[in-house]
């Protein structure tokens, strides 16, 4: 008896690049996209708020997952890049409009990312983590101590015009950018750049011997990830309409890091799942504020010890179970 093949095998590179590989995935994608587009018709405004927050953070998490999960450079600079993106937008949105300002947040944060990435040439693992943590602390202190940037004690309000101001319009804006950045991120990871990132993660020495310009690609990884994070920071500022320095303390870095580890190091969908977990848990359990970090801690520990691929690995196993249903 010939066994029916359950999934279409990838036979060449073009198959590997395809974002929607087969018919079930197509149905799934269309269903989800439709759901997100018609969601505001029946969801409460609070739900829209949470989903917008998840989408904004998921862009940053994907960017940092390219750096931490794919390139293997542990970084805690996330809150610094978020802050740079947010304050860039806050200062420029009035002068040059929303979209150019968002782009500028990303680009400016990317440039800073290149500078922060320079130590990564020599440092790895926990040492890089500490020096990027230092970067976050420095950005936080500079913002806290410079009223010209932060708007002083009262914080800083971000003007909302340019046609996009209601929560619903911001929801659709964020939805568009989330799709856009996830498709771009998926293509980056499937391209030769992504393969090189993975090679550097496995062993940068071997990658160098095989002819990879490790310095260039490590810094490129930093630039891509900080562009994503800066852009998300810009959206974040525009979404809240108000900024104060304490929004960008170290705990923001740690939240994003937790999202990556819980969702799955080195997976695109995992970034989305992890962000949804990390953002929605504190929003759902508002009354149990103290316990949310305990939940995070247990989730991280469980994923480190039992499931290194995080929620994405769990999802893969469930999918595999149903695909080969009677067999195990």
């Amino acid at each position, binding site marked *: 008896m010939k066994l029916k093949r359950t999934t279409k095998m990838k036979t060449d590179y073009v198959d590997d690049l395809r974002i929607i590989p087969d018919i079930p995935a197509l149905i799934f994608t269309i269903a989800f996209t439709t759901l997100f587009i018609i969601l505001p018709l029946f969801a409460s405004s609070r739900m829209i708020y949470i989903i917008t927050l998840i989408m904004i953070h998921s862009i940053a998490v994907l960017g940092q997952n390219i750096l931490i999960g794919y390139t293997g450079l*542990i970084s805690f600079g996330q809150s610094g890049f978020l802050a740079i993106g947010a304050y860039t937008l806050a200062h420029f949105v009035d002068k040059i409009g929303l979209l150019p300002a968002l782009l500028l947040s990303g680009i400016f944060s990317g440039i800073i990312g290149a500078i922060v990435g320079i*130590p990564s040439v*020599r*440092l790895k*693992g*926990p*040492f890089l*983590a*500490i*020096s990027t*943590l*230092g*970067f976050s*602390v*420095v950005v936080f*202190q*500079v913002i806290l*101590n410079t009223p010209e940037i932060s708007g002083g004690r009262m914080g800083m309000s971000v003007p909302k015009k340019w046609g996009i101001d209601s929560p619903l319009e911001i929801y659709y804006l964020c939805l568009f950018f989330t799709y856009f950045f996830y498709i771009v991120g998926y293509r980056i990871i499937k391209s030769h750049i992504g393969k090189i990132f993975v090679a550097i993660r496995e*062993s940068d*020495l*071997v990658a160098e011997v095989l002819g990879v310009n490790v310095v260039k690609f490590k810094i490129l990884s930093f630039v891509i990830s900080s562009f994503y994070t800066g852009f998300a920071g810009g959206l974040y500022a525009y979404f809240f309409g108000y900024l104060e320095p304490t929004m960008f303390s170290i705990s923001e870095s*740690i939240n994003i*890091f*937790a999202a990556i*580890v819980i969702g799955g190091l080195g997976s695109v969908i995992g970034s989305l799942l992890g962000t949804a977990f990390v953002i929605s848990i504190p929003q759902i359990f508002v009354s149990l504020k*103290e*316990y*949310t*970090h*305990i939940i*995070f*801690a*247990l989730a*991280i*520990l469980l994923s*480190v*010890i*039992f499931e*290194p691929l995080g929620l994405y690995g769990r999802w893969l196993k469930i999918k595999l179970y149903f695909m080969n249903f009677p067999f195990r």
Partner: protein
Amino acid sequence: MDYIFRGVQLGFIYSLLAIGIVLVYRATRVINFAHADFATFGTFIFLSALNKLGSGFSILCAILGFFASGLIAFIVSYFVFYEAQRRGVSPLGITIGTIAISFFIQSFEIIVWGPEPKSVPSFFQGTIDVFGFSISKTFILVLIVSLLTLSVFYLVITKTRFGISIRAVSQNPDMSRILGVRFRFVVSSIWGLSAAIAGISGILLAPLYSVDQVFLFDPFLKAFIGAIVGGIDSVPGAVVGSIIVGLAESLFGGYVSIKYKTAFIFLIGVVSLALRPEGIFGREIKERV
């Protein structure tokens, strides 16, 4: 001159934290991000005991805090990190696990003791004159306690059977296991010992800051940079590096700008890593494929 004394004082306190980071790193190749939280736990126990018993028993309370921070680290290592290691989790994975443990302890402290900072009365007030300099009594206390701890620690590590097994585990885990060292117990005691020493620094720092669940995070980062400057796998290096960091912090804060002193410390760390990644006393890091 005042700044130098203050710098040396901070440096000794940081060195108590840095020793623990180095010990754990040497034995397990893990950077312990929960180090500060173990020590904070001990400090909270110290505070509670102090409130119960009154200030007459402060030494007893300090010993209680010392053992509390050691015990919690021992338990966490014995039941969580060892199991993780046995299941084949890499040191980097366990480093991420220490971050999770740090969250856990912080939330636990908020639930039990509340989020608001608690002030601690300083142990001694006033100054005494030594060779024409007026030195605060707190400085003398810090100096005595740290030197005492460092020398007891040195004796334990070099002279006792326990210390020798610690060194054996750090040098060659597999061989020490074959030769009959109780690996799980010894590795967990390394975590416990390092956390207990850190607990002393937490108790010494408590009067300088107000105590809340993250008050040791900043000193922890500085101690880590001290350990990097001195060499992450060298105990004397950790002490020297921490004193350098303490002096730099105090002098920079005194003469240049108090706002950016943390930023300056990180600059020292980055420059040191760029010029000499293995630190002053460390061995050169060689990588094999």
